[in-house]
């Protein structure tokens, strides 16, 4: 019975001219522009439910108006005949069973479409999304790129958003893709789509989140694969063109999110030592390692590290070599993930951290940084063309 109904409905779907699905995917009376692989199914189903609704609404309204006119009380009529049935079981069972069969069919189709919306293909291109009052931030781990307020996605490839919230509930909604998913603090949620039309589409927050809820918007730019790769490559190497002066801010905004889960900015010890005051300790050589050595004995001409900067560079690229006392050495190596200039940026960030963030570790809006010259950071700012490949999805610190 079930499969019979389904095939019947599906064949009906095929024969009904889909009012909401023009071939070019443009906006219709009911639906906005359609630009994802999932949209046609949703639109067909919407049209099918509309069709049923129109039929019932017209039927009921016509009967209602006809009865109201046909059986209007006659002027001067003083009493009433008991004409007309007061119940009719076969009729009542009919108008119970027919709607029941219809809603079973609608439910089934809705379920099929929903499971498709929920199940992302395994080869999806993944983007980490962070929602916070009142902005969207997008991380491309594959390219080591962060975008805010807009996001580039490839055309014709499944894309998955892995979403987290930094504060309250939000919800990610792209009408042109017919997808929506709440973003819940304290857990990850996922949303996927496959864009089928290049262009720019509006992304909304659809869960009320406070004052500027209606301004928590972002744009989704769908780019053909080659343009997408090119744009990502450009974003991934943008720091190459930055003046030295901007490197500390760049590191804090774009790189620190990968360190944040272990290294605090406010002095509190987490998995690793806090970045607060780290440069000052390093410069004085106060750091003591698990084997009892003191850093001051390792730095200097002819020793293991020529400068304090060399020690920090080594800690990032080969963290197991020397582990600070009281810590476990859980840090992975960032060799090959960070370019030399990014390492430089991180060292500069540590040097000027007290100008970049306040005592609570919150970013200062326009930090007062000194003029920096090339070579102020570590040596060797030449870069390899190899792309950075971050692997963690830790949340971006935002602006």
């Amino acid at each position, binding site marked *: 019975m079930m499969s019979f109904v389904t095939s019947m409905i599906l064949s009906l779907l095929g024969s009904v001219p889909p009012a909401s699905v023009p071939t070019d995917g443009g906006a219709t*009376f009911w639906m*906005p522009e359609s630009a994802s692989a999932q949209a046609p199914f949703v639109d067909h189903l919407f049209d099918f439910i509309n069709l049923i609704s129109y039929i019932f609404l017209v039927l*009921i309204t016509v009967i209602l108006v006809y009865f109201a006119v046909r059986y209007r009380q006659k*002027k001067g009529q003083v*009493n009433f005949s*008991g004409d007309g049935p*007061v119940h009719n079981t076969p009729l009542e069972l009919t108008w119970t069973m027919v709607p029941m069969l219809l809603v079973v069919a609608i*439910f089934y189709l809705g379920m099929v479409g929903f499971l498709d919306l929920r199940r992302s293909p395994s080869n999806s291109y993944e983007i980490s999304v962070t929602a916070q009052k009142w902005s969207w931030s997008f991380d491309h781990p594959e390219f080591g790129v962060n975008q805010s307020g807009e996001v580039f996605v490839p055309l014709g490839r499944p894309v998955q958003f892995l979403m987290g919230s930094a504060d309250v509930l939000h919800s990610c909604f792209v009408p042109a893709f017919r997808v929506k998913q709440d973003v819940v603090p304290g857990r990850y949620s996922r949303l996927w789509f496959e864009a089928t039309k290049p262009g720019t589409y509006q992304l909304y927050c*659809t869960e009320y989140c406070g004052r500027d809820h209606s301004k928590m918007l972002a744009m989704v730019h769908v780019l053909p694969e080659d343009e997408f790769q090119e744009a990502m490559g450009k974003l991934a190497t943008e720091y190459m063109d930055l003046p030295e002066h901007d490197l500390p801010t760049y590191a804090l905004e774009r790189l620190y999110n990968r360190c944040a889960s272990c290294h605090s900015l406010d002095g509190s010890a987490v998995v690793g030592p806090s970045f607060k005051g780290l440069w000052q300790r390093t410069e004085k050589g106060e750091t003591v390692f698990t084997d009892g050595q003191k850093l001051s004995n390792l730095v200097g001409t002819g020793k293991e590290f020529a400068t304090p900067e060399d020690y920090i560079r080594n800690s990032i690229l080969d963290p197991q070599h020397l582990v600070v006392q009281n810590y476990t050495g859980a840090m992975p190596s960032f060799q090959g993930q960070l370019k030399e200039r990014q390492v430089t940026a991180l060292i500069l960030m540590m040097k000027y951290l007290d100008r970049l963030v306040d005592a609570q570790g919150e970013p200062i809006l326009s930090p007062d940084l000194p003029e920096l010259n090339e070579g102020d950071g570590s040596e060797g700012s030449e870069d390899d063309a190899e792309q950075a490949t971050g692997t963690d999805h830790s949340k971006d610190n935002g602006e």
Partner: protein
Amino acid sequence: MTTLDTGHHEQPRLAKDNYLTHSSGLLSWLLTLDHKRIGLMYLVSVLGAFFMGGIFALLVRTQLLTPEGTIMGQDEYNQAFTLHGAIMVFLVIIPSVPASLGNFVLPIMLGAKDVAFPRLNLFSYYLWVIGAIFFVLALFTGGLDTGWTFYTPYSTDTNSAMGGVIPALTAVFILGFSSIFTGMNFLTTIHRLRPPGMTWFRMPLFLWSIYATAVIQVLATPVLGITLALLIIERAFGIGIFNPALGGDPVLYQHFFWFYSHPAVYIMILPAMGIISELIAVHSHRHIFGYKFIAWSSIAIAVFSFLVWGHHMFTSGQSALVTVIFSAITFSVAIPSAVKIFNWLATMYKGHISWNTPMLYGMGFLFIFTIGGLTGLHLGTLATDIHLHDTYFVVAHFHYVMMGSALLAFIGGIHHWWPKMTGRMYNENAGRVAWCLVFVGFNVTFLTQFMLGSQGMPRRYATYPADAGFQIYHIISTYGSYVMACGFFLTAIYLVLSLFNGRRAPTNPWGGRSLEWQCSSPPPHDNFSEQPTVGDCYDFTVLEWSEKEQGYVWRSDVPHPGSEADQPTSEGSH
């Protein structure tokens, strides 16, 4: 009923002692235990709150005339829609039909002198008043901008939401108890105080729907109370229950909240359906069609209402399996609703339909509730709901159900029982004009919001992108709301005027047969001097129009109920 409007006739005598004149002085009202006076006080209070909620609605609509907003900033807008929603849900719609009309009509329909617990009844009213005061307090303690749903962690984070959250939660907590006590009172009254001859299946359908409502009120509302108490504890003392930063779970709050608030939708719509059953039958002068199907569908809706709360959370991240199950159960609610629509239509078949104001509201309900129900299909269907969730499509859908159906049925019920409550007839032509304004205004306001929502306009937005094509729909919708407001103002004017110069109401102006149409208008303090006997309350063939009374009277050639010749007729004997 055109004969009602023509000519000046000898006015029927006003009963000397009625419940309005039984005692006088302010205290005789404030301390009254009379269900009729309490019902009237509820009516005035609820309509006052309706006025306030309506003002906020007009502010919201006016703001949205332009993409960048016209009259308010973000904070003011967020407060306006929150207060509109909270006032309309908690202070207006939930108590509207049961507490005002139900209080007045229910004991009389049962032939009883009062409800089972008159003091508890008065206490319920004062709880409502205290709840309303706490809502006002919320405005003066920093405002309220959480939305009427109080979603966590926004509402419990003192850095996020405005300061009025705790007073507002207290208000809803207290209003919940007002609702619970009213429900308990009605359940007991219906169980214990039915007159001889009134078996369960001889009750007027209005009583069936009030009964089903009371069951929900008593079972679901305590869950809301506990949830809000937990919310207060988290916000006031920082004890983590719903806030993930404190180790809580925000989605748990949504489950708790909708476990009450979905059944609450049926607390709103079931009594309205009861009113419609009365209006359609009485004003069509025709036996209700399929009495048992309608009665059972009320119970079925009450039972299903407890099992569908998850459909408010299809995008919340609950598991796919749970989501699919909730979708399936949600569709089951569509069946009893459809059954009622068809039964009401069949009642009009071969009837004698008078086009007076209550019947116009009844017929308007059939049209509006059909749209409200059918658009529920788009939202219950998972694949389409994902797109429509939290957009104006949802806003339009629940306004069709809660405002166009529940509230307009309430207004229709006020017209139906107005002669009984006040002893005065309102101006019928003014009523018809006002209904036209309300009906047209309503549909213009909310039909456009379906397109707005399916085109992607999210809810609770103070501003919107200018290039998304939303503005034209907002403009039409706003003008529709102004037309509707005019209709309501006209209604208020002619109803108030009728108190001063309205024609005296006869005992039975419409030709109803349930017991309230057998005691004078307005009813005496004790309702009935002796317990009345009950017949088939939908058999209108025993009544005839009397020019002298300007109302319906018992036919001279038909024996009265209770006499030897009148044996109870059962359904289907015609």
